[in-house]
C-alpha cells in the first residue's frame, strides 16, 4: 500500500502504517502515533495504570477530529 496523503501530493511513498479509524495508508511523515494508557483493576479493587501503553496510529484528519473529545 502507498501513503494516501503523499499520493494526493503526487508522490509515490510506501505506507508503513494504517489509520485505525479511516484505514488510510500512511508513511512515516504522515502517521501520528499516540500512546494509550492501559488500566487494570476496578471494583472491588483500586484501578491501576499499567507501565506499558498501547500504540494507536492515526492519520492527521482523524487525529484532529478525535482530539476535540480528549
Amino acid at each position: 500500500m502507498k501513503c494516501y496523503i503523499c499520493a494526493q501530493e503526487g508522490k509515490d511513498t510506501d505506507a508503513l502504517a494504517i489509520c485505525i479509524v479511516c484505514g488510510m495508508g500512511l508513511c512515516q511523515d504522515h502517521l501520528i502515533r499516540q500512546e494509550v494508557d492501559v488500566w487494570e483493576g476496578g471494583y472491588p479493587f483500586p484501578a491501576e495504570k499499567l507501565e506499558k501503553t498501547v500504540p494507536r496510529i492515526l492519520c492527521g484528519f482523524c487525529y484532529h477530529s478525535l482530539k476535540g473529545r480528549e
Partner: protein
Amino acid sequence: MPSLNKRFIAELLGTFILVFFGAGAAAITLMISAGGNPTTPFNIGIGLLGGLGDWLAIGLAFGLAICAAIYALGRISGAHINPAVTIALWSVKKFPGKEVAPYIAAQIIGASLASLSFAAAVGMDAVTLGGLGATAPFPGIGYGQAILVEGIGTFLLMITIMGVAVDRKATPGFAGLVIGLTVAGIITTLGNITGSSLNPARTFGPYLGDMLLGGSNLWAFYPIYLIGPIVGAIAAAFLYNYLSSEN
C-alpha cells in the same frame, strides 16, 4: 494506584454513603410508624406501613447507596465499604494483608460519622425512636440463629461480589447495579429477623451513635454482626474460588 491516603478517604466516604442513606432509611421508617399498634410482637414498626414493602424500601435505600458508592469510588479504593468484604478478599489472597487494618478503620470511621451526622441532621427522634437504624435480633430470634442469618446473608452477598466483580471473566459494568440490588433483596427477606446488617461497619456506626447520644446500648449484640458477616463472606470467597477453579 491511588495512594493509601486517597483510598482511605474513598472507603470512609463510601461507608458514610451506605450508613447515612441505608441505616437512615430504617430510622426514618421507625419514626414514621412510631405510636402505631403492631398486630404481632414480631413487628417492631418496620412493616407497619406497608408490610414487606417497608423492608423493600429500606433494602433499596441500601442498594442504591451501594450502587452510588461502587460507581463513584470503586476505581479509587475498590469500594468494599464493609470489613467482611475486605477480610474475605484478603482470605483468598486478593487483597494485601497490610492494608486490611487501614481499610477497616476507614469503614468504621465513615460509618460512625454517618450515624452522628444523621442524628445531627434529623434530631434526637432519630436516636430515641429510630435508634439510628441500628440492627438487633428481632423478638423470638436467638443469638445463634441471628449469627446464622447474618452469615447466610453475607455469604450470598459475597458470592455475588466474587462472581460478578472479582472474576474478570464476568461482564464488566453491571457489578455495582447487581450488587446493590442483591443487598436490597437480602434485606427484604432478612430485615425483620436481624436487621440484615451483613456488615460490621454498618452496625458499628449506629451502635456508637446511640451510645454517645443517649440511645439504647446494644453492644451485647455486636458479636452477631461481627462473626456472622465475616464467616459468611470468607466461606463464600473460598467456595467461589473452588467452583471457578480449572480442575
